[in-house]
């Protein structure tokens, strides 16, 4: 389009903008007739003008972009200018007194000097430069500045940068005494001076951490290699030689030259930038734009490779640097030999770090550090507790993508199977022991890894078909094969079985979980290290008991706990925390079963042993007291119950203060005990305080908070607070319970029956009757509620003088009661129900039926026992 037409377009645009919609259409039509080309052009412009997205120009520039662009500092020219400036800061002659030469490389000379001003020895690095503009000088200055900018214990601090009186550019830094990692590697391979592979790995981990910091500062080192790592005499690790480092958004003085070179290689005057053996493929191929923090990750991997293989990657035969560069670009290094006792996890970490494609490497140095640390600390991702299923899924996925990921996932899953201790002190003998131990476990790990490989590899039909294997199928296949495939490695076997059992548990497959837990306990019996194995076995038995309890298999739960108790006593004696915990669990289970007489002695013993066994762990100590108190209360021995619980409460309050969850839960139990013992005044002393503290400490609407509120209402009702205060409180509580736990929940049911009781006492019989009838109609057949609702109703009807209706209600209560009795396993519930039925039948004048129920109740207690005697008295008083 000519200039004329363009300005014509602008005029037309201006004109059209002034027009309203209709006028514009006419205008366009006219234009179309006279100059269709121009009309199309204008139409497009007007459309763009109307299109909101054309306003992108209005957004303006992102502020960050502006910062980035302007902050991309230090072009070569600028550095040169600054160097000019540097020479203006010449330091006074004689400040640095030359001492020994510490080292020298191709680029610089490091000398020990005495800083007369600060009165200390420092390392002083210099470069003989031919004029300040030379690339070497620029690189040197860049090194000083980059290093000076990084403040990290793993990076040597730079003190000064300047030009001395003789025109020499220098910088000073902290003096590091020690050896470089290359020398340390040599010691490691010879197992000299306390250096072993594990300790050397510790050094690499420190390098990772320092580099993770540098990367976070936007600095990529680009020349990581063992020779550039210093290890101080006291274990300090320093990453040195930052002369090639590139700062994000800045151009390194060498890069432009390298880029400008004809080959595009990072070669300059015959020198390769970086060190070929440790250089990533992208760096070796001179693709500078591709070099980022993952190139450092590669270098770290190569350093790990050298440590493990005892030679650097691509090192076979003496080669020129150029030929190594060629090989780095061309192919992978010789693979690490698993046979030589290298842990498979390390091989896997190494190959992931050294992946040819950057995308396949660890995305960050931190991620590499995490895996190394996990390996070293044996801490390993907590797949055990945090969701093995997810881990498994990831595992399967990763395995299908890359075999290398398998071992890492394996470590995650098997957890502590591989123990390698970090040995800080050079105790050679201990180290050898640990290493031997580690080797043995490595063998187990190799076997376990092989097992996993089979499981998730080609032999699994799901995986080989490329389908998404269902976790449950994989679990099943694995569970079936652990015992045979890992027959020789009891420890690894037990751990895998435990992990799989845990997975089943989360999936609700309790029977399978139990089967594997049992298998794991059996595996632990084969483990040589008894101490750890016994403890693990007891833990497993506790877990099994928990599953059985949850699925209402109380007898099987008891079997597990009895076995746990026997093992605990046998293994660690009576006065051990394991034993006491087992007793406590067992006592609690018997309490749940209503076997109060059997629960009591176990809990008494637990309470006696607890202070000795648990030391100053008051939570554990108090647990058995509270349990015992509840048992005693259920047995009707309220005095002693209150005594024990109160003393536990006092101890807790003294140690943790009143507003502590444990203290408050114990106080709640005390409240219940006092209420059951009809000691309302004592309860009233602290119930208000407890109620007002509860929401903040125990949660706004936790069941405990609401239960405490319920007791507050009941206590106030009993100490005769006015009903017009009590009733609304109880109604409100009922509403909250229903809202929180559902209207058909046990909590809401309890609140509603309590409301009915209050209504009855207040003489509001019609409403009470309606309430209980409603409850009865909503209750589930065979439940305790189905029995209790008509049972409460009987009293209301009797008070209303409706004796016939009361008898009918009693009949319904009887039927529902029998249904409940047939279902319940709890002795306490059985006794309570029989007692209520006997009393109700006596109340409605059915004396024979009352007596029959009473006899059934008595039969529960041994003849001649005090409990029986007390109940005989009660039976004889029925109906009088």
């Amino acid at each position, binding site marked *: 389009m000519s200039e004329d037409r363009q300005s014509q377009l602008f005029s037309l645009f201006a004109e059209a903008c002034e027009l309203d919609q209709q006028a514009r259409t006419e205008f366009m039509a006219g234009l179309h007739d006279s100059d269709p080309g121009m009309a199309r052009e204008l139409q497009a412009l007007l459309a*763009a003008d109307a299109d909101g*997205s054309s306003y*992108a120009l209005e957004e303006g520039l992102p502020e960050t972009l502006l*910062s980035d662009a302007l902050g*991309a500092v230090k072009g070569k020219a*600028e550095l040169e200018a600054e160097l000019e400036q540097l020479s203006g800061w010449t330091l006074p002659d004689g400040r640095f007194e030359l001492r020994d030469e510490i080292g020298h490389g191709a680029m610089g000379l490091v000398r020990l000097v005495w800083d007369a001003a600060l009165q200390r020895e420092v390392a002083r690095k210099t470069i003989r430069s031919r004029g300040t503009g030379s690339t070497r000088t620029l690189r040197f200055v860049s090194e000083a500045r980059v290093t000076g900018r990084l403040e990290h214990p793993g990076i040597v601090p730079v003190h000064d940068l300047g030009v001395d009186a003789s025109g020499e550019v220098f910088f000073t830094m902290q003096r590091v005494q020690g050896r470089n990692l290359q020398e340390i590697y040599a010691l490691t391979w010879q197992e000299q001076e306390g250096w072993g592979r594990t300790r050397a790995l510790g050094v690499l981990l420190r390098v990772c951490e320092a580099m993770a910091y540098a990367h976070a500062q936007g600095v990529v080192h680009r020349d990581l290699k063992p020779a550039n790592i210093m290890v101080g005499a006291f274990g300090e690790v320093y990453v040195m030689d930052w002369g090639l480092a590139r700062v994000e958004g800045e151009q390194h003085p060498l890069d432009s030259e390298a880029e400008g070179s004809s080959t595009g290689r990072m070669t300059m005057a015959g020198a390769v930038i970086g060190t070929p053996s440790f250089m990533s493929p992208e760096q070796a191929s001179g693709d500078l734009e591709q070099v980022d923090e993952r190139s450092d990750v590669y270098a770290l991997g190569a350093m790990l490779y050298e440590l493990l293989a005892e030679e650097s990657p691509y090192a076979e035969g003496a080669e020129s640097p150029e030929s190594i560069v060629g090989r780095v670009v061309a192919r992978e290094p010789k693979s690490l030999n698993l046979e030589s006792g290298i842990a498979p996890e390390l091989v896997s970490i190494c190959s992931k770090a050294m992946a040819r494609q*950057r995308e396949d490497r660890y995305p960050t140095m931190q991620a590499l550090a995490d895996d190394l640390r996990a390996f070293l600390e044996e801490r390993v991702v907590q797949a055990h507790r945090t969701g093995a299923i997810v881990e498994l899924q990831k595992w399967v996925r990763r395995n299908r993508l890359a075999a290398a990921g398998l071992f890492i996932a394996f470590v995650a899953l098997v957890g502590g199977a591989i123990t390698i201790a970090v040995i800080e002190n050079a105790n050679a003998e201990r180290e050898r022991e640990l290493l031997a131990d580690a080797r043995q476990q490595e063998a187990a790990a190799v076997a376990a890894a092989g097992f996993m490989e089979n499981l998730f590899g080609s032999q699994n039909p799901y995986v080989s078909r490329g389908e998404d294997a269902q976790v449950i199928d994989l679990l099943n296949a694995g569970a079936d094969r652990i015992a045979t495939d890992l027959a020789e490695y009891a420890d690894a076997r037990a751990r895998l079985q435990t992990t799989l059992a845990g997975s089943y548990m989360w999936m609700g497959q309790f029977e399978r979980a139990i089967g594997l837990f049992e298998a794991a306990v059996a595996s632990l019996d084969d483990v040589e290290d008894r101490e750890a194995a016994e403890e693990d076995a007891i833990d497993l038995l506790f877990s099994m008991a928990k599953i059985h309890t949850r699925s209402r298999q109380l007898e099987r739960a008891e079997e597990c706990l009895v076995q746990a108790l026997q093992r605990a006593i046998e293994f660690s004696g009576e006065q051990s925390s394991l034993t006491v915990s087992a007793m406590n669990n067992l006592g609690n289970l018997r309490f749940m079963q209503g076997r109060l007489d059997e629960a009591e002695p176990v809990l008494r013993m637990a309470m006696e042993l607890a202070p000795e066994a648990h030391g100053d762990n008051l939570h554990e100590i108090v647990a058995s007291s509270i349990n015992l108190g509840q048992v005693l209360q259920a047995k009707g021995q309220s005095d002693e119950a209150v005594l024990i619980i109160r003393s536990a409460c006092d101890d807790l309050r003294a140690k943790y203060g009143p507003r502590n969850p444990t203290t408050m839960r114990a106080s709640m139990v005390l409240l219940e005990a006092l209420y059951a013992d009809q000691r309302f005044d004592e309860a009233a002393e602290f119930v208000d305080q407890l109620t007002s503290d509860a929401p903040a400490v125990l949660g706004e609407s936790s069941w405990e908070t609401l239960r405490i509120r319920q007791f507050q209402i009941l206590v106030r009702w009993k100490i005769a607070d006015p009903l017009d205060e009590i009733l609304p409180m109880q109604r409100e509580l009922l509403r909250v319970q229903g809202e929180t736990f559902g209207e058909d929940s046990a909590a809401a049911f309890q609140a509603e029956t309590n409301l009915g009781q209050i209504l009855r006492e207040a003489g509001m019989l019609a409403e009470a009757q309606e309430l209980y009838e409603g409850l009865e109609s909503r209750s589930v057949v065979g439940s305790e509620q189905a029995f209790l609702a008509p049972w409460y109703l009987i009293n209301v009807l009797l008070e209303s003088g409706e004796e016939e209706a009361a008898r009918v209600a009693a009949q319904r209560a009887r039927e529902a009661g029998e249904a409940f009795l047939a279902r319940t396993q709890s002795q306490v519930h059985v006794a309570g129900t029989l007692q209520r039925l006997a009393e109700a039948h006596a109340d409605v004048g059915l004396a024979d039926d009352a007596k029959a129920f009473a006899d059934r109740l008595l039969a529960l207690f041994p003849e001649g026992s005090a409990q029986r005697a007390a109940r005989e008295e009660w039976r004889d008083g029925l109906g009088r």
Partner: protein
Amino acid sequence: MGEGDGAKFPRHVDSKINPTQVLSESLAGDESAQGKLLDLLYEDLRRLAVARMRQENAQHTLQPTALVHEAFLRLIEQDQVDFQGKQHFLALASMAMRRVLVDHARSRKRDKRGAGQRPDHLAVEPAASWDDPLRLLAMDEALEKLAAKNPRQARVVELRFFGGLSLEEAAASLGVSRDTVKLDWRFARAWLHKELGGEEA
């Protein structure tokens, strides 16, 4: 300008060039002076930004408007330059800003293959933004084209978009009315959108 301000931004040390004088020469139509001033501004904007970022450490947000105005305060002896001189300076600073940004986008375009940090499994490309160096470069190119045909409209974009100048400032700088700038801006906006193929549509 008080002494405090002077200390905050040390004047440019290059004694060979006097920015104020170059500005006057440029204003008088000396094209080589304009080039010199542009180079000076280019360097200065970068220095200024670096200084700003060091001062403000973590949170550095830079507004083009603030930067070009600060450059003016810093480089030019205020009492020797009139209103028109200032507008001329701001126009040049906008050009310098454009150069800085375009250069940066060029270098980032090279880096882009190595950007790396962006997850590569994103199914949906994020909406185009000026952060995308390719988009900024395309815009620069289109602006060149526009300048060949409607130079004033292109200058308006430069002043407004790259220099962050207000309508009034742009009008003063170009010596035209506010309404003219407004219409220029509207036209350029639509034209660039069309030229860039409505790529964000």
